[in-house]
């Protein structure tokens, strides 16, 4: 897929990670608030089609317009934004009741991405739903910053591996497809036993070795394949180091670069604010969690990692 990333002024961040309930929507709403408070024009897009609830994190009612209008009536994206109650920040909800997300055509999806890139904003934050559906993966892959939210639990970790493997596999497939190699990845993967390929990393290495021009393509296309990791609901110092361990394991296991940008401690104030539909960053502005969110959002803006040991 073409990624005219460099020509735009704004940045697109996609927030995913596989498992539902890890706090993707909460994190999106908070990062957006922080960026807007810093005088950036921010647009949040909820593409959790079917389960869209980003609006309730700002205590606003279900908006009367949504991505449905884009898909069904061709309304311009900019006209579908609604106010969030926070200066500089608007929201597009993904509440597509009438269409199942599976029925969105590939061409419609590309059109949506083109329009997202043209939005008049410095930061567009896309809240993806859970799961590793192709639509979710494509929205993740089109972003300038691919952000994954994880909770330090085995099931969530397992789901995240699944999500990242799928994202990488799709990235490799789509990259080669755009250069005219339509079925090569599927072909080799289906015969992986025969070629002695055990995992995705070995598949990529095999492709690189076998065809030097494919190696060149992958070098170019995967050069900026990096995932930014945020840990949520952290309960102990050991939990925090799960972020560093994921970084290590994903590099050694899949050859993928991870930037561990930060974490949020487990805190009752978070669920209290969600239950009461209060924007967390405004109602708990002096909470430790707010500070942690500000820190990792700033790390994302600056493109740097969290410092774990030095005071």
């Amino acid at each position, binding site marked *: 897929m073409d990624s005219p990333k460099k020509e735009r002024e704004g940045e697109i961040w996609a927030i995913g990670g596989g498992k539902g309930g890890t706090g993707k929507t909460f994190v999106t709403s908070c990062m957006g608030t922080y960026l807007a408070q810093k005088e950036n024009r921010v647009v949040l897009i909820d593409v959790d089609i079917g389960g869209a609830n980003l609006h309730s994190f700002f205590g606003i009612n279900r908006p009367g317009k949504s991505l449905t209008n884009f898909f069904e009536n061709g309304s311009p994206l900019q006209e579908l934004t609604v106010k969030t109650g926070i200066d500089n920040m608007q929201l597009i909800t993904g509440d597509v009741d009438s269409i199942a997300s599976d029925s969105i055509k590939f061409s419609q999806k590309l059109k949506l991405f083109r329009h997202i890139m043209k939005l008049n904003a410095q930061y567009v934050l896309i809240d993806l739903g859970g799961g590793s559906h192709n639509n979710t993966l494509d929205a993740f892959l089109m972003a300038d910053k691919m952000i994954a939210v994880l909770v330090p639990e*085995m099931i969530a*970790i397992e789901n995240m591996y699944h999500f990242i493997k799928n994202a990488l596999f799709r990235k490799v497939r789509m990259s080669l497809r755009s250069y005219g190699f339509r079925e090569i990845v599927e072909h080799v993967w289906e015969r992986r036993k025969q070629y002695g390929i055990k995992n995705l990393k070995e598949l990529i290495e095999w492709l690189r070795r076998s065809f030097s021009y494919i190696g060149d393509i992958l070098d170019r296309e995967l050069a900026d394949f990096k995932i930014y990791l945020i840990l949520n609901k952290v309960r102990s110092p050991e939990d925090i180091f799960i972020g560093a361990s994921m970084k*290590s394991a994903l590099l050694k296991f899949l050859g993928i670069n991870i930037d561990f940008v930060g974490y949020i401690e487990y805190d009752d104030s978070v669920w209290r604010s969600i239950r009461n539909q209060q924007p967390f960053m405004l109602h708990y502005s002096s909470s430790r969690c707010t500070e942690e969110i500000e820190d990792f959002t700033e790390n994302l803006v600056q493109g740097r990692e969290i410092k774990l*040991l*030095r005071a």
Partner: protein
Amino acid sequence: MPRENYEKYFKILEISPDASLFEIKHAYLRLKKLYSTESPVIAPIAEEFPKKRRREILKEIEEAYSKIIALLENEQESVYDEEPSVSGEIPEEGKPESLSFSGPVLRQIRERLGIQLHEVALDTKIRVEHLENIENERYETLPPEPYLKGHIKTFASFLLLNPTKVAEDYLKRYREWKEEHSSE
């Protein structure tokens, strides 16, 4: 050998070449644990990430750690060479053996390694006040000798020094002070 030549070892331990000893030790222990156990991070991919590969990784980690520690020990020897008379004694030929480990010497070595006292405390479970008193030789505030000896040895091994030699040196000065004061 300068630190730049060790870049690949620092990379294996996933730390930057200017990492402090505390960071190095921490990274080593963490990675060793990660790849030698079925941790929640490894368990979900254990099947696709065979034990053989993980053993190779562990070997690399061990090698990197021992190379880096050897490098730091070399750097330390140059600490003695540069300023051999911190303790007030003049060692012969500036050899480490001839240096007496006093509180200020321990502090200097710690600072050269880029380690904060609270980091030592975190790793050794010795309270920061105790460590501070040891470095400043505030003998009157130190715990009874058997405990003190334990602390000194732990602190010394954390700094990659010979614990027995450090404890001997330190306690020699401590006993001299004690004798002076008990006769009053």
